[in-house]
């Protein structure tokens, strides 16, 4: 399933104008502060008065509490990102779709996990986010298959077919899903950049650079988690190609010590942007703080790009990131309140620019 090539030129003006308006409507700090004081029921009522009205009303009869919030968020996210694909033409479409394939990866993983845990088709389909390239019908067919082998077979003609087929031997041997999930993630990240570099356009080059930064950060995160958990895992297995910060061999060496890794990042091109994050890591010794600082750095970078290149993919990218962040923040608040965490603890989970 390759990206449809749309004819014509990119309509940056139109898409950017719409995206900027929607960006401005996202929740700000004030909204989060209000939400932090609410319980799940109140949050969904609050959401009913905002952007999420349609979704909350549509799902209100079927779900309640945190589930209602969660499904509304997913549905709203899918709606907005589908809009993006509907508006965009030409090159812009290709660039947006490339990034939104993240949700294809998410959906494929949902199917695999669902089948593995023995969930029925309906339960799996509930957790889909219909925002990627795979259409609803195809995803529903995936959910209805009874076994992981059938899923892999169905995906045969897509980009995930081959890597999954390769990984299925490992899966059968070990009985855990990690090889399959890794194969999906890796396919996504490796398909992300291909072809973007080749353009002359400065904005597209920066977009590619941004994607590389995202891959680098993902690698950093993985290494840190491995180093932290102290588990006996070979970090090279989790290495994602395409970034420019590490080679697979560096990673294995650095995963031994967090200090070394921090020093390595400080000397790299990201040193300046990430110095706050690194200080946080060294001072508080907390992974959560560091990971959030990485997120903030990405968001800020995307925002900066969108101001420098207003007629390019960059504003769209910055909107996609901000929207995803908002959804994650609201979810964190709702889940946190449900679990009875204190306000401070939840606030630590939020990433607000």
């Amino acid at each position, binding site marked *: 399933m390759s990206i449809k090539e749309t004819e014509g030129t990119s309509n940056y003006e*139109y898409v950017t104008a719409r995206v900027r308006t929607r960006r401005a409507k996202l929740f700000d700090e004030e909204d989060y502060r209000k939400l932090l004081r609410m319980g799940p029921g109140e949050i969904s009522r609050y959401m009913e008065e905002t952007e999420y009205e349609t979704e909350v009303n549509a799902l209100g009869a079927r779900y309640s509490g945190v589930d209602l919030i969660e499904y509304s968020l997913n549905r709203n996210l899918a709606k907005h990102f589908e809009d993006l694909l509907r508006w965009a033409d030409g090159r812009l479409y290709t660039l947006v779709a490339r990034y939104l394939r993240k949700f294809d990866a998410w959906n494929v993983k949902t199917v695999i996990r669902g089948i593995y845990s023995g969930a029925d088709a309906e339960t799996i389909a509930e957790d889909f986010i219909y925002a990627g390239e795979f259409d609803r019908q195809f995803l529903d067919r995936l959910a209805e298959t009874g076994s992981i082998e059938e899923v892999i077979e169905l995906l045969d003609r897509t980009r995930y077919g081959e890597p999954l087929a390769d990984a299925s031997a490992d899966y059968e041997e070990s009985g855990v899903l990690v090889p399959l999930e890794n194969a999906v993630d890796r396919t996504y990240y490796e398909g992300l950049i291909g072809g973007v570099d080749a353009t002359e356009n400065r904005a597209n080059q920066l977009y590619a650079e941004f994607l590389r930064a995202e891959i680098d950060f993902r690698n950093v995160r993985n290494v840190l988690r491995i180093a932290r958990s102290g588990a006996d895992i070979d970090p090279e297995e989790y290495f994602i190609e395409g970034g420019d910060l590490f080679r697979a061999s560096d990673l294995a060496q650095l995963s031994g010590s967090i200090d070394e890794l921090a020093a390595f990042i400080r000397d790299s091109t990201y040193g300046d942007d990430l110095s706050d994050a690194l200080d946080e890591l060294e001072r508080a010794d907390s992974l959560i703080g560091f990971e959030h600082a990485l997120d903030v750095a990405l968001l800020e970078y995307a925002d900066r790009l969108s101001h420098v290149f207003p007629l390019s993919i960059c504003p769209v990218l910055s909107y996609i990131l901000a929207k995803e962040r908002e959804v994650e923040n609201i979810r964190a608040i709702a889940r946190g309140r449900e679990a009875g965490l204190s306000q401070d603890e939840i606030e630590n989970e939020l990433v607000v620019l």
Partner: protein
Amino acid sequence: MIEFGVLFAQGGIDAFTPLQAISENGMAALAVGLAALGAGYAERGIGSAAIGAIAEDESLFGTGLIMTVLPETLVILALVVVFLVG
């Protein structure tokens, strides 16, 4: 124009015949046409952005409309040329 005239005169050719294929008025009209083309191109981008903004928020209709027709001033300025020449 004058140098050309001198040149042609020296060559014994009636200076203005070949250049009169398009009259001064015609040139002025061409200027207006080109200005309109430029205005149209400018409005293409602004118009699509304005429509995008209006689709999101209808209250932007007035602003969008004004922004869209701003390049029209180019054509009005080009009309001045017609009066200068004509």
